[in-house]
């Protein structure tokens, strides 16, 4: 049953919702989202109904992926701070282990220090829940095709 899928249980989702609601109150940010490593939205805080959280999740996941690649390309393991400055709102993104991303959108007027501190705390609290979802480990290296396997496969 449901081979290879990630499973999210109601009680875990509740806990994650509590964590991000608390983050929202404490840091005075506008919206918080949790997106998994495939770009699927896991959950988000209530926000302006005109904002489509699925699209926002997809775009932020794509953006975070691109940013991480950029880090690798300039010889950094990862960026310690990812910040997008807009004319009204800013976005702060953090990796939750290698299972997902925490996205925090906040007003220009909110101090970044506050956002960083509470976001970091939330990531630590969220990590166990996201790790628990990852029921099946990725295929191990030896199960994946070798260069030779691939050569034989295509046979060109």
């Amino acid at each position, binding site marked *: 049953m449901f081979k290879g899928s990630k499973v999210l249980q109601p009680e875990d989702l509740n806990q994650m919702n509590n964590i991000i609601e608390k983050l929202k109150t404490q840091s005075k940010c506008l919206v918080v989202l949790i997106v998994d490593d495939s770009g699927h939205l896991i959950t988000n805080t209530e926000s302006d109904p005109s904002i489509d959280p699925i699209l926002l999740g997809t775009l932020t996941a794509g953006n975070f992926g691109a940013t991480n690649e950029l880090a690798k390309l300039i010889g950094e393991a990862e960026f310690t701070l990812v910040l*997008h400055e807009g004319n009204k709102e800013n976005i702060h993104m953090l990796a939750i282990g290698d299972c997902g991303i925490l996205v925090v959108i906040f007003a220009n007027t909110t101090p970044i220090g506050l956002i960083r501190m509470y976001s970091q705390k939330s990531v630590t609290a969220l990590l166990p829940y996201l790790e628990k979802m990852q029921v099946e480990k990725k295929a191990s290296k030896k199960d994946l095709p070798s260069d030779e396997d691939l050569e034989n496969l295509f046979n060109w």
Partner: protein
Amino acid sequence: MKLSQIGNKIDPINEILENFLDDAGVTCAILCDMGGEILTTKGDITTLDFTNIAAMAAGSYATTKGIANLLGQSEFSLLFHQGTKNNILISSVENFAIFIILFDANTILGVVKQKSQEMKETLKIIFEEIVKGKGIVIKKAKVFEERDLDKVKPSKKKPKPAKKDEAEKEEAEEKDGSSKKFDFDSLMIDDLDDIF
């Protein structure tokens, strides 16, 4: 703005970048089009895979633009990423080009921000001259293009298929379940019966 459109204006652009490197004290600067194609580079890029850097920066920039759209603000004018040794700053000159600036911890962010703002203004003037001089129309790089999708919406009246086999193919498609009301429910319930 494509490289082919810039022509001999590349010299003043290079000069502006060089001045910027000196003033701001950054390691290097890459200028690329909105799609990530390199226009020019300045500074020490010998060890860098700048083709891929530009392509990823363009993706990053386009997605933040999409996010800005969604949130109802014009754009995120500046993307800043801080690493342990190297930092990167991405911004655009209107819809003409994207610039990527790499610098290390010894450089002051405030200075880079201010100098890049100045550079942006000068570059903008040059790009505008190019557009005016050559009558180039700059289309915005698009993120949301739902209205364009009308073009491909199947027309209400089915055009007469040109060839007989094409007509047959279309008919087969319809039997396949892709008729006007695509009935996924009936399609999936069979499969999902097994699953649940």
